[in-house]
């Protein structure tokens, strides 16, 4: 069960980072045909997400291997944050499927009722995950070990956006 929980979390984090890459590119290029631009942006997001995930994994591994933190305790405490993430991802991916497959009215509904508001709510959802990790952890140390990687995920978007800031 433990590896499955962390594997699911890693997958969700990568998907989230891919969308962060898309959002980073969206609205910056006025061309009509932007498929390749968006594909490249999503790849960039996934790469950034993989880097963040590697850092998070190293952070957690250092506590498990170096400080004797129990992996089972981490996984147990992570069940609630993982459930929040799964619920959020299910909602967003369903809306995205409706947007991708639907005609104009369905797309508008998916955008206005789900994709827009819940993209806006994403930072709050991640903070909620971190808080849930802290609350469910058997001790503060385990909670912090769990919460920090959640919060670092918030930095993927701004990190990707820094190259636009540099360009002015």
């Amino acid at each position, binding site marked *: 069960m433990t590896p499955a929980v962390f594997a699911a979390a890693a997958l969700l984090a990568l998907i989230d980072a891919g969308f962060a890459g898309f959002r980073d590119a*969206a*609205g*910056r*290029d*006025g*061309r*009509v*045909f932007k498929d390749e631009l968006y594909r490249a942006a999503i790849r960039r997001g996934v790469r950034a997400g993989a880097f963040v995930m590697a850092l998070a994994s190293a952070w957690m591994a250092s506590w498990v291997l170096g400080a004797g933190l129990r992996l089972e305790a981490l996984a147990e405490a992570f069940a609630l944050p993982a459930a929040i993430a799964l619920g959020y991802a299910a909602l967003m991916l369903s809306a995205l499927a409706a947007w991708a497959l639907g*005609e*104009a*009215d369905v*797309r*508008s*509904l998916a*955008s*206005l*009722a789900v*994709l*827009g*508001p819940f*993209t*806006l709510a994403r930072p709050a959802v991640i903070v909620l995950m971190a808080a849930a990790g802290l609350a469910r952890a058997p001790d503060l140390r385990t909670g912090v070990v769990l919460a920090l990687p959640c919060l670092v995920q918030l930095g993927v978007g701004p990190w990707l956006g820094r190259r636009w800031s540099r360009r002015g």
Partner: protein
Amino acid sequence: MNTPTLGPEVHGRQAALAVELSRPMRPRERLEISDLIVDYDPRTLVRRPVRQAEVVRRLEASGDAWGARFVGALPAKDGVLDEATCDAILVRAHTELQRLSEEFLQVDRIRRILSPLLTALRSRQVPGPYRIVDVGCGTGYLVRALAAFGRLGRDVKLLGCDMNVALVRHARALADEEHLDCELFAANAFTLAEPAHVFLSTGVLHHVRGDELARFFEGQRAAQAFIHFDTQPSWLSPIGSWIFHQARMREPLVRHDGVVSAARTHSRATLLRAAASTGFTCRSFDGASSWWEVLVRPLHAVIGVRAELFPTFEGALGPLAARLAEPS
């Protein structure tokens, strides 16, 4: 600042924008910053300097402290707003706004009305080629996307007009880059040498205020039809607009104007009353009567078609004809 004199033939978004600065303020009327920071003479298209203090004063008078601070922080020389900075902001703003059209499939929505309209023009043997002109086209996304995906026919010419030279220059560069068969002009859409058969716009009507609205429609009398989309007038629109712009847009100006524009949108009755001056058969399209419909169709349209073309157009619309509504 000089008050421009607008003849009945001078209309369009930028024309309306040009008078925005000099018109007396209605009490607490909310203003869009994009209407205030550039100014073109609607007759000559010559750019006029915009005094920063005047824009700040107008925004403050409208109760918009944030907007006043935003404009107050823009670079200026001798009290005149820096044109290059304002142009760059507006190009970025229009590029971001393109997302609205992309996400709501606005081109598809327009194409589904344009195609029956073209069927009516052809079947009534109105001589072509049919010139479809996007009024206040900004960076020309609508025209460029119609050129890319519209499949409207070889007898159709797509044109976009805007008085903002910087936006049109950007639009042309984008069209050239993608080899799109459309023309973009820094011009008044209503005074083109070759007049339009069909006028289009998206998100322009709410910029045209007061008496200018009737003149905006009067300027289209020589055409065969018009299709003008704008945000649904609803209590939900400003809220939805705020959420959408916060989630999707980065430019502070876009976030500000997006909400203000949703609050300034005209009612269906106002639009149909103003459109009636053309003498066309005018209908509201996708006018929402509940909050649910606003979510499904965030934009509505006012459509006007010459009376002799209307029955063919309505027939060619098929099931979409049920979404037309007569003036009440």
